[in-house]
C-alpha cells in the first residue's frame, strides 16, 4: 500500500508533555527509593502494627479527588499509534496538549457534571488521506475510556487539512460514525491504532 506520508517529523518522547511535570514537589521523596528505603522502621512489615499505620494513607479521604483533566485526555490518545507508522500520535504531534479542551456541556451551568471534550487533530500533511481514520480512532478511544457524562468532539484543526470541513462533518455525524465502524477494513485499522495503548 502506498503511504500517504512516508516521512513525517518525529518528536522525542522526552519532550512530550507528561503529568510528572506538574507534580515536581511530590517526586522529591519518592524517587530515591533505592538507597533510602532502609530508613523505614522495621515494624512496618509487622501485621500487628500495620493496620494502624497504613490504612489511613490509602483511604479516599486523604486525597483530593482527581478530576479528569486535559493531560489525562492527552495520555489516553497520545499513546495510540499512527495507522501508517509504528509511531505514536503524540510523537507525530497529531494530538497535542494545547489542542485538547474540556468545557461544561451546558455553558450556563458550569457545576453540572456533564462535560464536553474537544480534541483537535493535526494531520501530518495537508492532504493526508487517513485523517478520517485517525479522527475516528481518537473518537473510539475516548468514547471507550471516558465516563458517560462526557461528550466527545473530535475535529481536524483548522487550516491543517485540505478537506477539513468534509472530514469534520463525517466525524460529527453519529450515524456515519456508527456505520463506518462496521467496516472491517476500518475496524482493523482502528484495532491496530489501539494496540499500543496499554
Amino acid at each position, binding site marked *: 500500500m502506498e503511504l500517504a506520508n*512516508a*516521512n513525517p517529523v518525529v518528536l522525542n518522547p522526552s519532550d512530550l508533555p507528561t503529568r510528572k511535570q506538574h507534580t515536581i514537589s511530590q517526586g522529591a*521523596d519518592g524517587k530515591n527509593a533505592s538507597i533510602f528505603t532502609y530508613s523505614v522502621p522495621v515494624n512496618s*512489615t509487622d501485621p500487628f502494627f500495620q493496620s494502624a499505620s497504613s490504612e489511613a494513607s490509602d483511604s479516599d479521604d486523604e486525597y*483530593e479527588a*482527581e478530576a479528569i483533566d486535559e493531560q489525562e485526555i492527552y495520555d489516553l490518545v497520545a499513546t495510540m499509534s499512527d495507522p501508517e507508522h509504528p509511531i505514536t500520535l503524540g510523537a507525530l504531534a497529531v494530538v497535542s496538549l494545547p489542542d485538547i479542551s474540556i468545557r461544561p456541556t451546558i455553558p450556563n451551568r458550569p457545576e453540572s457534571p456533564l462535560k464536553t471534550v474537544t480534541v483537535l487533530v493535526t494531520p501530518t500533511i495537508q492532504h493526508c488521506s487517513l485523517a478520517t481514520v485517525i479522527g475516528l480512532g481518537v473518537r473510539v478511544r475516548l468514547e*471507550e475510556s471516558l*465516563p458517560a457524562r462526557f461528550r466527545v468532539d473530535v475535529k481536524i484543526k483548522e487550516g491543517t487539512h485540505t478537506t477539513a470541513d468534509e472530514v469534520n462533518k463525517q466525524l460529527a455525524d453519529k450515524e456515519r460514525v456508527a456505520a463506518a465502524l462496521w467496516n472491517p477494513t476500518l475496524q482493523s485499522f482502528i484495532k491496530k491504532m489501539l494496540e499500543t495503548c496499554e
Partner: protein
Amino acid sequence: MAEDDARAYVLAFENNNTEAARFASQTAQRLQHGECKLVDIIKATGEYLQNTDPKIRERATNYLSAIISALPTKTLTRHDIPVLNLFLCSRIQDGGAIDGLSKLQRLDRYSKENAQELAQAIFDNFSDMSDRKQAERYQVYMLLNELLSNHRQAMLDMGDGSLLGYVHVVGGEKDPRNLMLIFSMLRVFMIEWDVSKHVDTMFDAVYAYFPITFRPPPNDPYGITAQDLKDRLKDCLASTGTLAPSTFPNLLDRLDSTSEVVKKDVLQALAACASNYDPATIAQFSIPLWDAVKFEVLQAQEPFLADEALNVIKNIAICLSRKASPHAPEWKADPLIQYLKPINKECLEHLQEPASRQAGASGDILKAAASATARSFEVVIKAIGPALFSLQQSSEGINNQRAILSVVNKVFEASIEVYGSWTAPSEKNKEEQPTLLAEFKDRLLAIYSRALMSTVREEVSYRLAAAKGLLLLAEQKHLVDENEIGLIVQHFNEIVLDEESYGRDELKQRVMQSLAQISQSRPRLITDITFPKFIARLPDDEDQAAASKDYQSVLEGLAEISVGKDLLETLIRRLLNKLDILVQTSGQQYPYTCAILSTVYYVLDRSARDPQLSLDSYFQRVVVGFARKAASASDGPLADETVLNLLGRTVNLIIRRSSNENKDEAAQNIYNLFRETSSNGAHHTSLILPSNVLILSTWILAALPKSSNAGILGEPLIPLIRILRKQADRNTSTKYSVAVEQACLKQITILINKHVSKQEDIAEVERFFYSAVECVSGSSSGQAEEGERDWHCAVRYLFTISKACLLRLMRFADQILISLINLLESLPPEKARYLALGFGTLLSQDEILSKVNEAQIRLLAPQRVFQKIVPMFSEHFRDPKATQEQKETYLIALSGILGSVSSDIVMPELPTLLPLLLQSLEISDANQNVKVATLETMMVVITKNPDALIESGHIPALTRRLVAAATLPKASRKSAKASAAMKTNKSIDTTMTDAPSSSVSSSSPKTRQLALHCLTLLPQHVKDQKTPNPLLSLKREVLNGLAICLDDPRRDVRKEAVDARARWFRNVDDADDSDEE
C-alpha cells in the same frame, strides 16, 4: 554347523530377538576363530536367501547383517568385503540390507570402489521413496550421510554422478527429522563439489523448502524446532556464491511478502549469504540488495525487521572490505566504494530534514555501514562528516538540532565498534589506529558542550542527546585526553549539583549514570573533580540539612560514583566522620543522620556482593565505636529507634563479614556493647539501660553464626529467653515502646531458631509454647486497657515462638498449627480477629530471621505449613456452625499466609482455596488487607493457572465479584467528592470512615486498582480452545460495570479501568470469529 545356526536364527527371529542375536554372535565367533569360512555361511544361508517369501529373505539378510556387526573390524578380509558388499547391494531393497551395509562400510577395509558401488546401488534403487515409511527413509539418508563423511574422496571421484544421485534420492522429502540430515548433506555438496553446471538443480533442491512453515506438534518428542530447520536451510543457501544469481533475485522477491516471519527469514538468509559469499559475487549484487533492503529500514513497520535489514547492510560492507579472491575479475573501482556511494548519497538526502522519520532511519543505516570495518568507516565518514557539520550549522529549530546530534551519536557508536573503546580494544582494529573522528574532535567537543550547557533546561531531549554524545566521545579509544574528559566531568557535576530539578529529571539521572561509568574507567578524574564537589555539598548538621533538602541526591550520587575500592573507602571515611559529629547533636527527628547511615549501609552492602570481601577494617570504627557510643546515649540520635535500626543493620553486615575473632568479640558484647566498665556476670539481671539499645543487640545477635559459643551463647539459653520475655512484659507495664518489645521478641526467635539445640532445651521451648497458648486462651483478668495490652503482647509472644519453631520444623510443628487454629475457633470474635493477624507473620520474610543471618529455615517449611493449614481452614469454614464473623476471621488468617508464600506452593491447593478466595472478596469488613492479599493471589492464579479457573467453573462468580470490588458505590463516590470540597472540616472525614459500612462495602483505592487489574488480565489469559470463551457471556455486563469505574475519583484507578475496558472490548471474542480474520 553353519546351517544349524542359520536355521536357528531364522526360526528364532520372529519370537525372540535376543536369542536370535546370540546365534548370530555364535557364528561370528566361529568365523573369527577360523572355524568356518564366510563362503560356508553364505552357502548355508543360501536356501533362505533365495526364498520367494520376502519375510524369510529379510531374516536371512538380517542374519548376515548381525554377523557383520558382531565381528571385530579386522576379521573380514579384503576378499570378503567386496563379496558381501556386492551381495547386499543386489538385495538392497530387502529389509536388513541397509543395516548390514551401513555396518559394512564402517570397516577399515571397505574400499573406495565398494563405496561407489554402494552409492550407485542406492541411487538406482531408491529413486522414488514416496511410498516408504519415514523410518525407512531415515535409514537410507543416514547411510548416505555416513558414506559422505566416511568416504568423501570416493564420492568426490564420482563427480556429478554422486551429486545428481544424492539430489535425486533426497528430493521431495517432507519430514523435519530427515530434512535436518538432508540440508547438512546438501551443504557438503555445495561447498566441496563443483556445482557451477548444476546451479538450477542444486538451488531448486534447497530453495523448494523456503520459507519454512513447519510448526512442531505439541510435546514433540524429537525436539526439532522451526528455527533449527531455518538455520540449516539458511546455511545451505549461504554456502556457495555460485548460487547467487538464483538466490538473490528469488529471496528479494520474497521480501515483498506480507508475512513478517517470512520477511525475517529472508533478511536473515540475505545476511548469511552476505557474510559467506565471495566479495566478487557480492559486488555484483550489492546495489540491488541495498535498493531492496533499505525500505525495510526507512519505512520499517516492525523494529525487529529493521534490525535484520541493518544487519544485511552491515554484512555486505564487511564482505566487500575483504580482499577479493585472486582469480576474481578485476574491478574498475573499489566495490566497497561503489556500494557505499549510493548509501551515503541517499542518507544525506534524508538528513536534509533532520527531524523526519527517515532521517532517524538514515542514521541507523549509516551506523550499520560505518561500523562494518575500519575501511567502510573511513568511506562513510569522509562522505558525510563535513556534510553533517554544515547541516548542523544551517538547520533551525531545536528539534532539528537534536535529531542531528542523535545521528552523530550513532556515528560515535560505530567508531567505538570499529576502533575500540577506552576499556576494550576492537577486533576490527588490530593495528590500534586512532579513530578518524580525531580530525573533528575539537569542533565536536565545542558543539556538544555548548548544546549541553547553553540550552534552557526545558529542552530535555536535546540536552540528553548532547550528554550521551559527550560520554561517547570520552569513551573513544585514543581520542579525548584526560583534561578534556575532566571538562566533561565538570559539566556533568554542574548539572547534577547546581541545576534545579525539572520534569522527570531525566537529564540528571543520565548524567549521574555517565559519571558512574567514567568512575569505572577513569577513577582519578572522579576522585579529583567530582568527589570533593559533592562532599562539599553535604550539610554539617540536621538544621542545615532541613533547610537545603537536596542532600539526598548528593548522597545518592556519591554512592553511585564510588565504585572503585579507593573511592569507596574515602567515601565511607568521610561519611563516618560526619556521623561522629551528627550523633553528638540532639533534636527531635534525624532524617539526615538516617540518610547518611543508609548510604553507608548501601555502599557496604553493594561492595559485599563480592563474597570474598572482608569488612574487618570497619569493625573497630563502626561496630565497637558506635555501639559504645549508643550504650551511653540517653537521648540524641543514638537513642532514636530508626537510627538504631539502621546502625544495627550496618553493624550486622560488618560482623557477618568479619574474622572469627571479631565475631567472638561481638558475641561477648551483645548486651555489654563494648562498654569499658564491664560488670561481669551482672548482665542477666539488669539487661541494659537505656532499653532502646536492645535494638542494636538484636542485630548483633542475629549476625552471629549458629555455631558461636562465645559470651552469652555459651551459657544456658533458657534463662536468657525467660529474661527477654520478662523484659518484653516489663516494657508493657512501664513506658511502652513497640521497638523494644519487638527487639526482645526477635531475640527470642533467634535464640530458639538458631541456638537452642539440646534435647532438654527443646522440651523446655515446647513447654513455653503451651504456657503461651494457655496465657492467650485464658480470659484476661483485668478489664482495663493494661490487661488488653498484656494479652496482645502474649499473642505476639505466642507467634514469636511459633515462627521460630515452624521454620526449623521442630518435631511438634504440627501441634503448633493445630493449637493456633483451635485458639482461632475458641476465642471471642474480637480477640480471634487480633489472633488472625498473627498468621501473616508465620511465614513472612524476615530481615532478622533470614538466610543471610544463618537462620534455620527448612526448605520444605512453607509448603508443610501451608498444606497443613489450608485444609483445616477450609473445614472450619464449611462447618455449618461457623458464624459469619468466624468465617471472616479465618479469611484474615488465610490472607496473611497467602501474602507470604510463593505461588508455587499455593497452586496445588487451588481447588480447596478458590471458594474461600471468592468469599473473601465479599467480606464486608473494612480490613482491606484481606482483599488485597486475595486479589494479589487471584492475579497469580489468572496469569499462571487460568485452566484451573476455567475448570472450576467459578469464572462468572469471580468476574462479578471483581467488578463489585472495583466499583465505588454511588454514595461514597459522592462523599469522596464532598470531602474533597470540604477538606478543612476534618470531623466529617472521621465520621465517614468510622461509620459501619452496613449497606455498601467500599473498597480502598488499592483494592479497586487490583480488582481492575485482575479484570484486565482475564481476557488475556482465559482462553479455552475447546469450549466457547467463558468470558463472552459476561462481556456486556463487565463493560457496563467498568463504565462506572471510568468515573472513579482516583486517577490510577481510572487508568486501570480504561485498560480493562479496552481489553474486554477487543480481546473477548468467540474463537471462531477471531479465526475468520
